[in-house]
């Protein structure tokens, strides 16, 4: 990602929008005990397209903003989302994946890591009450719901970030496309 005013504005806009929508809308829409969690999806999408360092920076900022506006313990969400952003960013850097449906898997893994790690942090911060086994069901439902929502969120983030990305994700997909196997025999595979 090219660092500059444009990239700050675009990422900042995405984060503020995601956190406000999460708190005012998605958190109030329980479905089978779970809920959509778009903040982690936005962090995963930025990390996926921009890399590990922007990923962990955006994870930290998103967690900070989330804790600030939700009144939760400051630093807990930042800690977990920083790690999630870094992990997704490293995955992209090491594997250089380009399949169009990969955001589904990335969204699911990021959400799973987020809910599990946040639960672990909450336990470490001493939850002074009995914990119902239904928490596990809620986590699973949240992961499934986020998997459904991952593709549109990733597409939206890609469109928003594309002008400031060092490597265009669409160009990467084109690079990975297999050579054409039709046309005159002598030109097959040469993309002429």
């Amino acid at each position, binding site marked *: 990602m090219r660092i500059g005013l444009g990239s700050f504005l675009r990422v900042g806009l995405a984060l503020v929008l995601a956190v406000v929508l999460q*708190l005012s809308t998605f958190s*109030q829409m329980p479905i089978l005990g779970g809920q959509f969690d778009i903040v982690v999806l936005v962090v995963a999408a930025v990390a996926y397209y921009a890399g*590990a360092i922007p990923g962990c920076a955006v994870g930290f900022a998103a967690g900070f903003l989330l804790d600030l506006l*939700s009144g939760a313990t*400051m630093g807990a969400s930042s800690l977990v989302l920083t790690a999630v952003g870094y992990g997704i960013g490293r995955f992209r850097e090491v594997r250089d994946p380009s399949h169009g449906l990969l955001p589904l898997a990335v969204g699911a893994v990021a959400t799973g890591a987020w809910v599990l790690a946040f639960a672990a942090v909450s336990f470490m911060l001493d939850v002074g009450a009995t914990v119902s086994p239904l928490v596990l069901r809620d986590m699973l439902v949240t992961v499934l719901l986020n998997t459904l929502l991952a593709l549109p969120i990733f597409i939206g983030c890609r469109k928003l970030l594309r002008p400031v990305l060092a490597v265009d994700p669409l160009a990467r997909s084109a690079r990975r496309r297999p050579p054409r196997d039709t046309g005159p025999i002598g030109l097959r595979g040469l993309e002429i």
Partner: protein
Amino acid sequence: MQDRKAIRRRRAGLVVFLALSIAILTAYFGESGGGFFHALQRGAQETFAPIETGASRALKPVRDLVGWVGDTVDAKDENAQLEREVDELRAELARTRTAQRDASQLKGLVGLHKEEGFPQGTKPVTARVIARSPNVWYSSIKIDKGSSDGVELDQPVIAASSDDSGPSAGGLAGKITRVTGGTAEVTLITDASIGVGAQVMPAGAAGVVRPEVGDPRDLLLDLVHGGRVTENAIVVTSGFKTAVGQSLFPRGIPIGRVTDVDLDEVEIYQRVHLRPFADLRRIDIVQVLTRRGTPAQTAGVFQP
């Protein structure tokens, strides 16, 4: 050489952000309620409150639509009825139902004040929920009334029931834990930090209502003593005075109904299960009791 530099920079970035997070976490726990990060939270919440209020109102039909879908899946027994409702789902209907839901909750709250045993003279302030905590570990909501409306710390908050067939119109939802000029944060009784002194009516057994994290429809009445508890008994706030001080909640606010009395659990843990009257999963409107009020003459006398 270049690679090593990039690796070092990447790792340094991760370490810096993780260390920052841990430093903030430590500072937050170490400071008092008036410390820097708490003040920063209050300021940010006040700044973003108008945006959240706008977004919350604008997207309410969407929430109701999704909430409706969730309820459909939940209520397997009402499948046939819900299938008929699919045909009725239109944009106009969504708006109408939004209004109906608000009216129903307000009606429930009015009914709650008229209930036998409810404390009198509590001077309720009606408020709309504008935001909700994003996970099960922190159970809180934000409302659009604050100190300028008379809302203060530790005041009790009540909410309506979603079940119109029940004998109670609603019950205790939580208490005020943070106030700004135009907004306030309500920590719900399903939050891990909350404990409410309670009494079972009409048996008179007393205990402390604690949440079961992750299941908003199940509360625990811990440390039950002083009487035998039966299923379907009503649980209300006790308002007891103890050596520590007087309970924050006035006597007589309905909390829930006892749903499960396991004799083994009662003997070993002195604990029974209850279901809250207030629908804590989907709250749109609440009332803050801005004055403690006085217990009714018939305080705690409820028909089971």
